[in-house]
């Protein structure tokens, strides 16, 4: 099972190579991956239905309890099936949709990684592992949303999605850690079993709020809903995948997964239900005003996610069942509709519903797929959408609460579903029926492009009829969310019930709004404009602009482009900080008495000081470099005297190389000038002395504290026993702390390549025959 999650990460790097070989056939080959994963997960169905749980564990960082533990129960399995099943179709559809696009190889790499990350999220049983995959989905979706990276809008949308979701993810991490602390374990399966202990803990509310921030941002709940419609900049197959099967459902998944641990309290009910209700109504309200196919679908996704959150918030067995079934319903119809929208765009060159009509003649199969999906979305029998909607109403009507509250909740649910009916009509019926309208004669799309949505639409119908076929799976799924065994009895026909009446009301209301939408949308849009200044998307934009402005202003003050200015700031800060500590914490009385100074030490110190003073007085670079070398060699002597031959040798070699470097570059540099005024030099001298005195004091303070290191004796003792070496310094470098050294040589290499790039790949360099630009002058000269 670990292999199933990791396979995507392993396969992704090979995809660009594959694309070079297979070109347009890549889609078919890559789609084998989700397909085989789908088959694998489907093969687990029997065991899961029997009540088994499939697990796999690999040690990763056992000392921190962070391990690669994966776990499949009903909830994970259904998610995995949706991810890989719709994934297969999206991969195939994407190949046809992006036919001939230059970035197709990149698309497959990104979407494969994305699928693997998403599988990781739903499979992970370790909190940290979950978080890692969670952030990976944010990152890979960022790449996917910004797929058309030459478009500024796509880049902005991708950045916005990344900032919102990964910021939420960081809050979530804090929450998850708090949760693990109160539960005393990092394994999700154990956390879920300790709900009572967690809810009794003082940290519960903080953990809940932080985790919900993560879930809400990911699943685009109010007030974080605004990133999702922006993500429409992505190509249609990406939208289909993101909206139906993956990214946005991650938040729903998290809430469902942690429901047994976190749910059932007043805080949970209030926060989750309220956010869900607000999102559901806002998304639905905004959806019917839009005229762009994908925008309508995007806002209806927001609304649908709101419905799921709303149901999870209510948290009874019936609403949880409704939420989980609705998740499946939504995945099927939304995946299909986004593909349909992509096909329409492909065939006609526009997504504006006002410019479209009667397309069913030109693209009959697409129209059929759209119709099936839309009927499920509108909740009409005998499609799956109907079953889910009946369950929603059943759930709200059976709440154990006052009748006023039940009425309110039911009314909200009716409104949410009503908007869905309208959006379904606008997105899937209007372009295909009525008078033929299109910017130019539409052509039909290739078989892959209509087959993929048609399969999803067909499933909406098949699953609506064959309820008993998957009832046991759904039972296991709801069980995982509810935390207790459940027994479901799904049925298409319940008889003449209140639910059915509510369905009728919903459909009639949605239809009325659909018919009135063209006339109502104008006032609604202008109302929206009036509210714009307080809209979350506006607040986000202000926040981003504010941050950029503040950073610009700050860097204008701090980043003066003068190295000496930076050094001054650093030095003054150092002196101030150390000086404060000295003044408040240290007693200087017996500092100077303890040290016995020897003559040669004084001589060396004198030489170093004299050389340093000489450096400041010289005005030839070569002699200044030589004098600086004297300072370095003086320090080398000190190292030798105090028994650090390794250090001395390194210092010596470095000093030599520094002098060589100076000699090499000196001819490039303009003549030394009097760059600073006399006053500035005096100030610098004072600063230098103060820094010197401070550092001396620091050294005295440090050396006066008795050393109580346990490491030195350990290294000295173990050096020969464990690493066969007498030279402790080298043994530490290559053995005990070899990993550090490896990091250091890597950094060194990167720095050298940076220098090389700066020198060799100089873009300003005039091409042969061009006039060379006049020598750049020192900045001061321009100032004067």
């Amino acid at each position, binding site marked *: 099972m670990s292999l199933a999650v990791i396979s995507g990460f392993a396969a992704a790097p090979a995809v660009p190579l594959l694309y070079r070989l297979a070109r347009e056939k890549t889609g078919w080959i890559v789609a084998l991956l989700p397909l085989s994963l789908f088959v694998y997960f489907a093969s687990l169905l029997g065991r899961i239905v029997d009540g088994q749980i499939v697990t796999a564990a690999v040690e990763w960082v056992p000392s921190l309890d962070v391990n690669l533990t994966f776990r499949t129960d009903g909830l994970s399995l259904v998610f995995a099936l949706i991810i890989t099943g719709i994934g297969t179709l999206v991969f195939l559809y994407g190949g046809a949709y992006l036919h001939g696009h230059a970035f197709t190889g990149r698309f497959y790499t990104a979407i494969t990684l994305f699928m693997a990350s998403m599988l990781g999220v739903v499979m992970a049983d370790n909190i940290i592992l979950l978080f890692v995959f969670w952030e990976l989905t944010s990152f890979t979706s960022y790449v996917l949303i910004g797929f058309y990276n030459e478009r500024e809008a796509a880049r902005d949308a991708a950045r916005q999605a990344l900032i919102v979701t990964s910021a939420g993810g960081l809050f979530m991490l804090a929450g998850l850690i708090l949760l693990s602390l109160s539960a005393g374990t990092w394994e999700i399966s154990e956390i879920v079993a300790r709900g009572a202990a967690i809810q009794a803990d003082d940290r519960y509310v903080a953990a809940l709020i932080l985790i919900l921030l993560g879930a809400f941002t990911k699943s685009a709940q109010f007030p974080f809903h605004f990133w999702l419609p922006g993500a429409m900049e992505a190509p249609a197959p990406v939208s289909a995948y993101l909206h139906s099967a993956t990214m946005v459902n991650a938040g729903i998944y998290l809430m469902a997964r942690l429901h047994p641990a976190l749910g059932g309290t007043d805080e949970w009910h209030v926060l989750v239900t309220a956010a869900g209700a607000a999102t559901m109504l806002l998304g639905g309200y905004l959806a019917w005003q839009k005229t762009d196919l994908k925008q309508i679908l995007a806002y209806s996704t927001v609304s649908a996610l709101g419905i799921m959150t709303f149901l999870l918030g209510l948290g009874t067995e019936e609403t949880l069942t409704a939420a989980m079934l609705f998740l499946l319903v939504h995945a099927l119809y939304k995946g299909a509709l986004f593909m349909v929208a992509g096909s329409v765009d492909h065939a006609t060159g526009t997504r504006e519903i006002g410019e479209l009509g009667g397309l069913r003649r030109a693209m009959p199969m697409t129209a059929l797929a759209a119709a099936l999906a839309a009927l499920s979305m509108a909740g009409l029998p005998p499609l799956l959408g109907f079953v889910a909607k009946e369950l929603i109403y059943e759930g709200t009507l059976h709440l154990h609460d006052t009748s006023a509250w039940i009425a309110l909740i039911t009314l909200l649910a009716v409104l949410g579903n009503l908007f869905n009916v309208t959006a379904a009509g606008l997105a899937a019926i209007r372009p295909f029926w009525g008078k033929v309208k299109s910017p130019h004669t539409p052509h039909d799309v290739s078989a892959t492009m209509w087959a993929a949505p048609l399969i999803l639409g067909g499933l909406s119908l098949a699953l609506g009829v064959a309820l008993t076929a998957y009832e046991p799976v759904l039972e296991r799924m709801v069980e995982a969310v509810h935390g207790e065994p459940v027994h479901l009895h799904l049925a298409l026909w319940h008889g003449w019930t209140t639910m059915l009446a509510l369905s009728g009301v919903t459909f009639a209301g949605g239809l009325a709004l659909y018919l009135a939408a063209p006339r109502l949308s104008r006032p609604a849009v202008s109302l929206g404009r009036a509210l714009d200044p307080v809209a979350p998307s506006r607040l986000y934009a202000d926040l981003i602009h504010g941050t950029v402005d503040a950073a610009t202003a700050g860097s204008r003050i701090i980043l003066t482009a003068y190295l000496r200015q930076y050094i001054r700031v650093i030095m003054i800060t150092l002196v101030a900080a150390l000086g404060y500590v000295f003044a408040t914490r240290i007693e200087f009385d017996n500092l100077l008495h303890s040290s016995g100074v020897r003559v040669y030490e004084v001589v060396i110190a004198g030489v170093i000081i004299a050389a340093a003073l000489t450096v400041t007085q010289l005005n030839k670079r070569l002699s200044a470099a030589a004098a600086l070398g004297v300072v370095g060699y003086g320090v080398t002597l000190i190292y030798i005297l105090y028994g650090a*031959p*390794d250090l001395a*040798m*390194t210092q010596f*070699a*470095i000093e*030599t*190389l520094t002098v*060589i*470097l100076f*000699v*090499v*570059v000196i*001819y*490039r540099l303009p003549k030394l000038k009097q760059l600073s005024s006399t006053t500035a030099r005096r100030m610098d001298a004072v600063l230098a002395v103060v820094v010197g005195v401070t550092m001396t004091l620091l050294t005295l303070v440090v050396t006066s504290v008795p050393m109580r290191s346990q490491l030195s004796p350990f290294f000295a003792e173990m050096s020969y026993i464990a*690493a*066969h*070496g*007498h*030279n402790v*310094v*080298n*043994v530490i*470098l*290559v*053995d005990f702390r*070899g*990993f550090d*050294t*490896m990091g250091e*040589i*890597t950094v*060194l*290499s990167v*720095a*050298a*390549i940076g*220098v*090389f790039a700066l*020198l*060799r790949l100089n873009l300003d360099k005039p091409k042969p025959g061009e006039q060379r630009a006049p020598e750049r002058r020192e900045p001061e000269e321009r100032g004067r």
Partner: protein
Amino acid sequence: MRSLILQTAIRYLVPLQLMFSIYLLLGGHQQPGGGFVGGLIAASAFSIYAIANGVESARRTLRVDPRLLIGVGLSMALSSGLLGLILDGGFLVSQWGEREYPGVGTLSTPLLFDTGVYTVVIGVVLLVIFSLMEEEQEA
């Protein structure tokens, strides 16, 4: 900067420096020395050679591109770590051979690692110095 004295002296100095650098590399585990210092000394030998005889001549004498040295050195360090992982189940867990070779001592992954450091350091320093010197020539 062509100087006959320097050019003549270099002929004797560079081999000595290189030998010394290898001595430091191999002896570093028991006495002062090691890959880092050894690499610095070898790099300074080639740098002085470049100052005396020109960059092109120094590049010819070195035979390989410094960039290649960086890559090879990093790979050596990495593979010494991987050897530990394969043979002993831990990245960078040191492995020691049985036999002792005259002048080299026992073959081991720390030696491979240190040789990697040595190679990287030579590559890094020479990449920077050669690039700077060539830049100067062009100007």
